[in-house]
């Protein structure tokens, strides 16, 4: 049996008469970097909320990190990491306080937190910033730290919601190198982005249009399938079909 970290079928979410997510079926392998693309309003956020166990599907079934998304959503939350562009760290806490807080939330012991904090700060070359308030860090640093904190408890999978929006080009690439390192360690990465060059860095990419997944394959295969030079073009061909506003 191959190791599927996400395995969902016919996942659906309705808000009244509006079908935000419409019978999506897909799986993600362990250690894979999975790009989750789609236009604004295509249903990405809602789908991600269901996978993270914070929104109950209207229909469909599946597992995330081996736990049932309907019955075991509390266990899911404990075994995933999450980071978004909008909220990642507490701005008014110091760097080490943030690490401690999130380590504590995931139930790590003080000793483990202390050891891992040192290792993490060293790895990021952040030792001098240990006592800096997060709000004084440049955005790119903040996002790198936030990512490290999101995988601090070694989750099976980490969800990244537009992690690199507004980050400068060099930092954006360093960030992706961190994603690669995490994937090499066996952490599955589920990421959304509006940068189409970043779609190329994923092992596989899905593109959502109007609540369903219209394309799912490796970037190279998608380019071939849509006879396009870039992922940007693939995306445009698909998103043009969207009917809902």
């Amino acid at each position: 049996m191959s190791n599927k970290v996400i395995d969902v079928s016919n996942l659906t979410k309705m808000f009244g008469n509006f079908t935000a997510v419409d019978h999506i079926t897909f799986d993600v392998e362990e250690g894979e970097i999975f790009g989750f693309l789609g236009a604004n309003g295509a249903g990405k956020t809602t789908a991600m909320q269901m996978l993270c166990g914070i929104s109950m599907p209207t229909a469909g079934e599946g597992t995330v990190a081996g736990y049932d998304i309907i019955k075991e959503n509390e266990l899911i939350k404990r075994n995933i990491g999450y980071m978004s562009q909008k909220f990642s760290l507490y701005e008014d806490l110091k760097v080490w306080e943030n690490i401690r807080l999130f380590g504590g939330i995931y139930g790590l012991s003080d000793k483990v937190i202390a050891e891992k904090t040192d290792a993490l700060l060293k790895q990021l070359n952040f030792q001098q910033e240990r006592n800096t308030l997060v709000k004084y860090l440049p955005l790119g640093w903040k996002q790198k730290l936030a990512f490290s904190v999101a995988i601090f408890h070694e989750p099976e999978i980490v969800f990244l919601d537009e992690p690199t929006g507004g980050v400068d080009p060099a930092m954006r690439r360093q960030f992706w190198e961190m994603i690669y390192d995490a994937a090499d360690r066996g952490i599955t990465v589920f990421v959304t982005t509006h940068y189409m060059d970043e779609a190329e860095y994923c092992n596989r990419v899905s593109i959502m249009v109007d609540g369903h997944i219209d394309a799912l394959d490796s970037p190279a295969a998608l380019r071939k399938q849509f006879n396009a030079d870039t992922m940007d073009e693939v995306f445009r061909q698909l998103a043009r079909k969207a009917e809902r506003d």
Partner: protein
Amino acid sequence: MIKVKDLYKSYGKSGKIKALNGVSFKVDDGEIFGVIGPDGAGKTSLFRILASLILPDSGSALMNGHDVVQDYRRIRQIIGYMPGRFSLYQDLSVEENLTFFATLFNTTIEENYHLIKDIYQQIEPFKDRRAGALSGGMKQKLALSCALIHKPEILILDEPTTGVDPVSRKEFWDMLARLKEQGLIILVSTAYMDEASRCDRIALIKDGEFIATDTPQGIINDYSDILWSVEGSRMSAMLKELRTHDMVMSSFAFGDKIHITVDAGFRRNELEQYLTNKDFRDVNIAPIEPTVEDCFMALTR
């Protein structure tokens, strides 16, 4: 015409955080001028100063001859300003929002309909819908309509495309291109480097300073390194491998390729052979024209 000279701005106790560190530039009539750089580089501070919303610590800025500090009342009549986040009334309908802003500027939707027709027509079918219930792309069109309804001479758009998907972004830039034909000065900021080509001239901003100001092509022409693209199998491993190579000065992932700058002794065949020996397959190395993003990285390195 916009003339900005030596703008400085800092925040916090005793100016601890420097937002603008001596910015000067000029924008001609009918130009789209892009300020491009990452978040926190000072784009919002610059635009707020130009919109007369905050005061610079020093320096001056003239917008069509009006000083942003002294003539702020006049400035507020001639500019259309769209802040970074959606800043309309979510509980008012599309039409109510537009009517309200038209009245603030002593005009009506009918009087200036021709200015916004192109954009507004796309959201007019939803004119009774509350702004809060619009999708991202439609909100943006409404915000642009509201900023345009009084026939401004200068349009100031602070990161209008942040968080917007590539298709809506392209549509938005198409709208700006058509607006430009009406003779407006359009000042726009973005963190997306690929949007540079849609501007007549751009300024690359980093840490409160303009590190380059030119046409997009001019900036690319000034790129002094020799740039090659490398592709093949196992890209992330290849990236690490390239970093260890003597001839390679820098290497960065760029979509499905890796962009490398090399020193003068570089031979394409040599590197191709080297990578093939390291078990990378389908290795293909080709010279490549730099993008604005390459330039930005070279300038900030």
